[in-house]
Structures are given as structure tokens and as C-alpha cells.
């Protein structure tokens, strides 16, 4: 066991997979640290160049369509690319490649072509304004043919990224900028390190984790919001409200069973995400539970999400828009009174 940050865990996963499988390579903007380069906008790919050289750590022009399209083409013909887009918001520059190409190629070919690619995309509000801030999960969980994962701990980051690289389908990896825990500290960042086993391990997609057990409310929360939910749970415990916090870890596929199991105990469901309220991924979870398991519920489902506005710059406004620990606590109290 070693203690490491999410950045270190992601880096280790990529390093080990590139060693294990010569078909794996990285491409993206500023991903190489050769010649004074960054080694990735968030330093995830630092050190890879020394081991694997220019070809397997390919710095690209600022061309998102090229990055995504090349990943699709290389993946279709025997490679396993890991693409890096610096900021998730830039995914919109290559939506066609992600949605019309990567996601549909296997289907349109009648199952004769596979696209084993990984697209890494940092999300989360970090006082950079509206175009470097969004949590985009909802857009992509909508797309048949994509898998969508969101590791929040170092252990999950390494294990899930390895699974993503070995998966035969396009996998979108949402990483939260405030959870990286690298040397480059963000304001408001959690200085997180976590235990990571030595050597190789993978984590299957579609297996949620119960981060904290409780009897009264089931809180499903991902990425940064999982930590805020945990913080809220500690406070709520003092008031006698015992929260069970579930981290779904992967959104497509989604582990409904763990949520349902928890609801048998609590009868109350809260979903917390930094994605927008309207049609955020929580809307689907909420609808699924209402459709299939409504008799488990003792109260209406509560969704706590970013308000339906672009992410503002001013820190006071940004904090207001993104769900805070306080907002989660307030919502939990009102849910208990339902």
C-alpha cells in the first residue's frame, strides 16, 4: 500500500498500462513534459515521455476534433489511445467525434468495429469562469455507446482508469480538478491522498461504493460532491440524522442495485451533483427509482445540484451556484421533515 494523490494514481495507471500493452498511447494538448512542456494541464502525464518517448506521448496541436478523431481511428485499427482534453468544456469542440463517431461506430458496423478509446476530461468549478468549469456528465450519460466514469479517490482513479483502458468501448473519464491533489494546488482543493495497493488491480464498472453507512437518508453523490456529502453527513449525525453516502463511481453503467438496497433501509433519497439540476445525471437516477422502486420511498426524492446557470466567476457567486455542504445539510433536514 502506498499513499498517493489522484494525480499520482492516474499517472501510475497510465504508466503501468503503457508498459503492459504497447497498443496504449497518449495524445493531447501539452501532455508531454519533453522540452519544457507541462506534462498535462494538471500534470497527470508527467514523466511519461522519459519512459515512452515522443510517439507514445503525442503532443498535438490545439485541435480537439483531431485529437478525438485520431483516437477513434487509431482505436478502430488496433490501438488503445488515451486522449486528454485539458478541460472537459472543450469536449464540445469535438462533440461530433464523441457522439456521432466514437459512440456509434460499433453499432453502425453491425458490431464489426470496436473503438477502445479513453477520453479524459477534467470537470468542476474552480473560479475560472463559465468555459473552464462545467460538470458535463449529463450530456454524455445520454449517449448510447459511451461509458462514463467519475473516480473520486486515488484508489478508484487507478483501478477504474485501468479498466477503462482495457475496455473495448469508448470510455469518458471525468476527473475533478479539486480532487487531483497534485503539487499544483487549486484554491478550495481537497489535499487528498488515499491508499493505493501496489501493483496491478482493476475495478469493474457498474459497482458503486457505500462510503458511509446510515439509516435515515441515502445520499448518492459523485466526485467533489461525494466529499461534501460526507462532510454534511458528519454534521447531520450530530443532529441524529444518519446518512448513507453512496459514490456511484461509474454513471454508465450505473449500479442501481446498491442504491435500491440502501433505500430499503432509509426510504429517503437525495442525489447530489455539480452537474446542472435540469437533466443532470441525477434526473435519470431519480426517474429510475420513481419508476421502479417508488414504494420504497417514504418521502419525495430530493436533488441537490448546480443551479441552471453558467458557472459564474466571482468566488461568492460560484460557491452559491455549486452545491455546498451547507446546502446539502439544509436539504437533508427538510427531507427528514417530509
Amino acid at each position, binding site marked *: 500500500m502506498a499513499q498517493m494523490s489522484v494525480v499520482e494514481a492516474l499517472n501510475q495507471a497510465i504508466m503501468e498500462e503503457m508498459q503492459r500493452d504497447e497498443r496504449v498511447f497518449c495524445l493531447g494538448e501539452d501532455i508531454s513534459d519533453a522540452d519544457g512542456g507541462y506534462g498535462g494541464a494538471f500534470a497527470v502525464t508527467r514523466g511519461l515521455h522519459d519512459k515512452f518517448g515522443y510517439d507514445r506521448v503525442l503532443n*498535438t496541436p490545439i485541435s480537439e476534433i*483531431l485529437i478525438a*478523431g485520431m483516437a477513434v481511428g487509431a482505436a*478502430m*485499427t488496433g490501438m488503445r489511445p488515451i486522449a486528454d482534453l485539458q478541460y472537459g468544456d472543450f469536449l464540445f469542440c469535438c462533440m461530433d467525434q464523441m457522439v456521432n463517431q466514437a459512440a456509434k461506430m460499433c453499432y453502425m458496423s*453491425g458490431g464489426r468495429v*470496436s473503438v477502445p478509446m479513453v477520453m479524459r476530461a477534467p470537470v468542476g468549478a474552480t473560479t475560472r469562469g463559465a468555459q473552464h468549469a462545467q460538470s458535463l456528465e449529463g450530456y454524455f450519460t445520454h449517449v448510447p455507446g459511451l461509458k462514463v466514469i467519475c473516480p473520486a479517490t486515488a484508489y478508484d482513479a487507478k483501478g477504474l482508469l485501468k479498466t477503462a483502458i482495457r475496455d473495448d468501448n469508448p470510455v469518458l473519464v471525468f476527473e475533478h480538478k479539486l480532487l487531483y491533489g497534485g503539487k499544483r494546488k487549486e484554491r478550495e482543493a481537497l489535499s487528498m491522498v488515499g491508499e493505493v495497493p501496489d501493483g496491478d488491480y482493476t475495478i469493474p464498472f457498474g459497482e458503486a461504493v457505500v462510503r458511509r453507512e446510515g439509516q435515515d437518508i441515502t445520499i448518492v453523490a459523485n466526485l467533489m460532491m461525494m466529499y461534501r456529502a460526507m462532510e454534511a453527513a458528519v454534521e447531520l449525525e450530530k443532529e441524529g440524522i444518519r446518512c448513507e453516502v453512496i459514490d456511484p463511481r461509474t454513471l454508465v453503467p450505473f449500479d442501481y442495485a446498491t442504491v435500491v438496497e440502501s433505500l430499503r433501509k432509509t426510504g429517503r433519497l437525495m442525489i447530489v451533483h455539480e452537474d446542472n439540476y435540469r437533466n443532470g445525471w441525477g434526473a435519470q437516477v431519480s426517474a429510475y427509482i420513481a419508476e421502479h422502486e417508488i414504494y420504497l420511498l417514504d418521502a419525495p426524492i430530493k436533488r441537490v445540484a448546480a443551479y441552471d446557470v453558467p458557472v459564474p466567476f466571482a468566488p461568492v457567486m460560484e460557491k452559491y451556484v455549486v452545491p455546498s455542504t451547507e446546502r446539502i445539510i439544509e436539504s437533508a433536514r427538510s427531507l427528514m421533515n417530509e
Partner: protein
Amino acid sequence: MMANGKIKNKRTAEHSHSDGNNSSGNRAGLAKPEKSQLLTTLPEKRKALGMYEAMVLIRKYEERIYFLFLEGRVSGSIHQSHGQEACAVGMLYDLRPSDYMASTHRPASHDLAKGVSVESMMCEMYAKSNGCCHGKGGAMHTGDISVGAIPANAIVGSNIPIAVGIALSCKYRKTDNVVVCFFGDGASNEGAFHEGINGAALWNLPVIFVCENNLYGASTPVKATMKIDTIAERAASYGIPGERVDGNDILAVNAAASRAIERARRGEGPTLLELMTYRIAGHSRSDACAYRPDEEEAAWFARDPIKLYRNRLLDSGVASETELSAIDAAIDERVDKAVELAEASPDPLPEDALKNVYWEGGVL
């Protein structure tokens, strides 16, 4: 290259960067589609007839599809490629099965020329379970990865960066395979064109970018969409060779293809070829081509690529009328049989729609 409104087929093995000297002709391309100068020499007989056969297969396939469509036997829309046979066959005839080809919403000529079977194409048009995409692709997505024809792409220009990724893969896997990427004049105004070609040029990737300039993006003439005269000259901005070629002269296309393919195989990087050609049919099923002047159509139809090549074969004595007619008849029979097979083939099960969203393994 265009000069004084006429086509000169390049005879040298050299590449020239398109330098804008092509502007003397009609901006739409061939000012007057005069009889091609046909300076290129015919290949040996087997290849000469093989290319003829491949062109006739495309023509007869597309003609049959048109009638099947009118009869309501095939669904959806059709974007037909007849009239552009010389582009497809000239570019692809010398490729290996292990080379790749990336096509567009008008893929039949490319797919057939790359070796996708006419039977599996026809079955796909009939939306049958034994179609080349098992009924999940349709007219705009035909292909067969086992012969290097990746599923055709109906988003204009989007196959370009994908082709660049395939070329990268060919290089990384240490093969000397190449990728031929087709697109139309319209695609050259897409961002994907710029990003893709720039990347391929940057890394000297083995890909040949082939613009089939049929003078119209759907109903809009090329000259209404760009201020420059040729698409080939765009190559200069990526630092790669660009060449405009008579796309209705299969020998000219094949000669340009050889130069570009050899360059790519040698690891010297991509080439942009602009093949001047013309659709026989409209853009899609209901297009009567009201935007095309009658005299333009007449001039181009007089330069039908199959007619030109057929005459060339006969004039040069490489083949007799009897030989060529025998090829025509054999193709007719093959297309008939493909239709019979498609008619008799089973529909997919409705619930097959739920399969293949994710990779299920194996090779079909």
C-alpha cells in the same frame, strides 16, 4: 493540373505544390470538359481490364439501386456515386487489402472498389441481416473492416481526422499500410479538414486525402463557398503536395494515386489530391439538379469516365468489343444475383436493434 482551362495529366513522378497558377480556368473546374488528352499509358492487360470491370460494377450497381429505390424496394435515401467511378477505382485499384479506406455519405463506389462484396452491399441496401453492417448501417455507412473499408461516414469531413488516426495506427504498428480518405469539395470547408490534414502533415502520416470535387456541395456550387480557385492549393498551407487531376480519366487518377501512395508508404507523408468529376445523379434521392446548367451537364456527360476508358481500351487495341461486352454481361449477372440474394435474405429481428451498442467481441 489545370492550365488554360484544359487538363494536363501529370506524367512525371514529381509532386508539385499547388501554387495558385491554376486560376486561368473556369473556377468551377473544367471550363469546357474537352476530350481528355489521355497522355498516360495503359497498364498491362489484366489490370487494364480489371479497372474497367471495377468501374462497370459500380455503374451497374448504382443504376440498379436507383431503380430499386424507385420501386420502393430499398429504404431511406441514396447518395449515388456513378459518374465518379474513375476516382474510386483509380485511387483504390492498387491498394492492398491491408490498406485502409475511409469514405463518405456517397460510399458505394469506394466500398466496391476497395473490395466490399456487392452481395453484402446489396443486402445492406435491402436492410437485411446479412448486409455488410447487418442492417444497422444503411446506404451511408456501408463498409467492411476485413477488407480495410471502415464504415462510411455521413458527417461531412468527419472521416478525415479518423483517417489520420488510422494512419497513425499503421505507423505505430510498424506496417507500411496507407489510408485513402475520400471527401467532397464541401468537406474542405469543415474544421475537421483543417485539423486533420494539419495533423497528418505534421507527423508525416501515410494518408492520401482525396477530394472528389463534383462542383457542388448538395445544390451549392463550389465557387459560392470559397474564394480560392482550387482545393488542391489548400495543400500549400499544410506544407504538403497538392495536385488537381482529371477525375474522369482513370489513368490520370491512377497515376496520381501511385505517386501519392508510394510517397505515403515511404513515410514521406500525406498528399492532397483534388479529382475533378461530376455526379450523374443528383445529390440525393429527390434532387433533380435544377442548379446545374444544361450545357454543363451535357459537356460532362460527354466525358463519362466509363465511356472514355472503354473507348481508350478499344482504340488502343488492348481489348475487343467482344471482351468488354462479356465483362458487361458478367457484371449484369453478378448484380442480378446480388439482388436475388438480397430479396431472399432474412430481415433482422426487430430486437437485434438492442445489440451491438457496445462491443460484444469476436469477428462476425
